[in-house]
């Protein structure tokens, strides 16, 4: 168990890429997790994904010594009732997140930390759907969450001091370092990153450069560890389009309107690393 928050019991809602990332991070740091999703088949895939991610974390020397936390999967949100903190990691659609957070809020005891792993939706917008808005904060984990230590922490206008202290305690327990920002669409990271990725895709669509060259320039000349289009494939192009729509609808900035190439790739099922094909082919390219 981590320092400063012994006894944490985490519930993670949503067993997709980020839900399994966060679960692997927590279990690998000795924190027991209840992972909730609506579908038993999704949970079965998720258990295997968490197992692989724990091995990946160990391979990279990213886990502390000590026993893993227990992982329980469930299709019932009721199994999150005893959690000390709940992290929502469902699809980046405002209506879906709002509905799930409302249910979570009605399930847990007052005083239970609620966290949204939203990448773009303002926390105060989501806070309107929970019973106790002061107990909701945003924590934007990176992908893969178990390898990248810094996280973007969002304090909404209604998030109280005690909630921020609890977030800090939880992150210390998970070995992450929180950088706190104020609320706003896309916060800091995706307000900057998503329009960049969108522009990078437009450059490819216009035939100015290939994905490899765009990424090669930003990696080699600007020192980005992962270029924008490799990053897009890692995020998932469907999730990226959802996030760009959230940004565009709220800021009205043209740079946030998903470009044709991104929409086309989503239409044809080329969603990035998770589908085996995006801007890169993951059957052939060392990435």
């Amino acid at each position, binding site marked *: 168990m981590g320092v400063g928050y012994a006894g944490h019991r985490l519930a993670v809602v949503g067993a997709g890429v980020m839900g399994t990332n966060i679960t692997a991070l927590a279990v690998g740091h000795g924190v027991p997790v209840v992972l909730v999703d609506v579908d038993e088949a999704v949970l079965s895939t998720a258990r295997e994904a968490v197992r*692989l991610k724990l*091995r*990946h974390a*160990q*391979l*990279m*020397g990213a886990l502390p010594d000590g026993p893993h936390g227990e992982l329980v999967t469930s299709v019932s949100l009721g199994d999150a009732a005893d959690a000390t903190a709940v992290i929502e990691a469902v699809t980046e659609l405002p209506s879906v997140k709002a509905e799930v957070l409302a249910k979570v809020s009605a399930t847990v005891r007052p005083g239970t930390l609620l966290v949204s792993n939203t990448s773009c939706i303002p926390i105060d917008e989501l806070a309107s759907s929970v019973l106790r808005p002061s107990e909701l904060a945003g924590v934007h984990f990176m992908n*893969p969450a178990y*390898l990248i230590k810094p996280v973007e922490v969002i304090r909404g206008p209604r998030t109280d001091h005690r909630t921020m202290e609890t977030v800090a305690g939880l992150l210390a327990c998970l070995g992450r370092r929180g950088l706190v920002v104020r609320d706003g669409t896309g916060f800091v990271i995706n307000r900057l990153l998503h329009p960049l990725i969108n522009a990078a895709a437009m450059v490819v669509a216009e035939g100015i450069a290939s994905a490899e060259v765009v990424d090669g320039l930003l990696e080699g000349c600007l020192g980005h560890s*992962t270029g924008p289009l490799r990053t897009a494939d*890692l995020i998932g192009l469907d999730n990226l389009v959802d996030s760009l729509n959230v940004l565009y609808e709220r800021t009205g900035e043209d740079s946030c309107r998903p470009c044709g190439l991104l929409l086309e790739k989503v239409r044809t099922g080329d969603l990035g*690393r998770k589908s085996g094909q995006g801007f890169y082919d993951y059957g*052939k*390219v*060392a*990435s």
Partner: protein
Amino acid sequence: MTTEYASAVAPVTAEAVESALTGFLAGRAGAPVEADQDLFASGLVSSMFAMQLVVHLEESYGIAIVGPELKLDNFRTVGAMARLVMRLREAAGEVNDG
């Protein structure tokens, strides 16, 4: 190291593993790979691809890379991976023989 194992295919030797891995990596990376080249320092292999290498070795050579063996240094070069494969196959062989 040239210990031979009963196998339906060619015997697994360190040299054979190195040769297969060099081909596998060159095909994936689109560049030739040396046996002692640091794959991570050269940027040829990312942290994400490292895990694919683990699974590839396990499936190709019937080994389980677990516990303290699951560390990056065992995958840093083609030579290190070949030594890991031979070490784990030897250990498994000893168990089977015993």
